[in-house]
């Protein structure tokens, strides 16, 4: 016997959530009944080094961002530093005005096309 129940997306989300809660209740009951109760307390594992070699337990959000930007998106980072944020106000003004010029051109083209061809 098999049932294929066609429902709307909201009902599907509701049903799946209820099923998840039911399964969670069962898994919690089974896990906590079966699991070993033995616990050993140690210091933080640092490959033999003392705990004071690390100042932060978790990496900062800034570190993650720069890790991603500087290592993976290296070209994007270089473009940002060398062309936009060079420290020269003149470079910045050139970059922003060139983008503004593109936006103005696109808006003029859109306006002309819309005026000519819109029904």
């Amino acid at each position, binding site marked *: 016997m098999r049932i*294929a129940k066609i429902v709307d997306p909201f009902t*599907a989300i509701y049903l799946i959530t209820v099923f998840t809660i039911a399964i969670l209740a069962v898994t919690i009951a089974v896990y906590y009944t079966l699991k070993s109760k*033995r616990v050993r307390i140690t210091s933080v594992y640092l490959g033999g080094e003392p705990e004071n070699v690390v100042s932060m337990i*978790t990496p900062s959000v800034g570190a993650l961002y720069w890790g991603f930007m500087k290592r993976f998106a290296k070209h994007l980072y270089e473009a940002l530093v060398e062309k936009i944020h060079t420290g020269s106000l003149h470079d910045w003004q050139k970059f922003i005005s060139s983008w503004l010029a593109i936006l103005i051109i696109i808006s003029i083209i859109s306006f002309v096309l819309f005026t000519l061809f819109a029904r």
Partner: protein
Amino acid sequence: MNEIILILISILIFPGLLFLVVLSFLTQYAVRKLSARYQRRMGPSYVGPLGILQPFYDFWKLLRSKEIVKNKYSLVSAAEISLLIGISSIVASVVLLPLSLYNIVSDFDILIFFYMASVVPLFMMVIASLSMPGPYTSMGVSRLLSLATLSEPTYFASLIIPVYLATRQSGVFMSISSAYRNVLSIWLDPRGAVIMVLCLIAYIVAVQAKSMYQPFNIPEAEQEIIAGYETEFSGPLLALMNLFHDMDLAVSLIIGVYLLFGGPLPYSHTSPQGILMIIIKYLILLVVVTLIKNIMGRYRIEQGLAQILKYGLVPSIMASILTFLF
């Protein structure tokens, strides 16, 4: 009343909790045995016939006999509950598959599946790892999140394109159960076949990265950052983490079997040929994943991201563009 019994069977026995636990252990056995053969080792051999019960025994030993090792920063219960939520979420998602005895079908159910079987488990894994903090854990988690920024969109695109192609003209729109019936007809159309090949490539790369197998075993990077995101896990918690990982892999492969290879097609679910077809397709995908795992070394994180971008995200974007052109 019958419907409630069928729901309970579907979520707890087949294809729910019990079935997925057994399938996860068998998948782990196949990966370990095949990997061992590639490396000229015996692999699991002693527990059960041909060592098939070794993953069950390992799980049981970790769960029942081993101790949880914790430090003053550990939040063991938070880690346990996070992993159990992740496992429950994966198990609940299988009622959206045509395999389920009680199959929920709706418009856009692929999005619900993706959320339950991929997004929630990922975040639960991250929360669980950060609940058992340590420097290697943090490093592993940051690598895991970096990989996920590309592997998750790739996985999503590689699955949603076949569903869109298969349901745009007939059936329930963007539904897994409607889509798998039309998958073979997409393969038979030359233009559709090109798109499906691109999706298949992207899917394999994404699954490899999602399951953290070589060359994308960067978050656990053994010998480099100890065990990465799972360094602080031990005893029952490690048993849960292993089960969670294998279950994630098993469900990722099942959805691939349905949406990229048509599940039991050209036979029906209820026929022995259909069941055999699903098993064969599942094993093909598993062997491909294990083969890549064994012939490749580990990338560095930026190399890994570049490879996912090149061989995963770009094919999936090309497939998306072709889909809208045709």
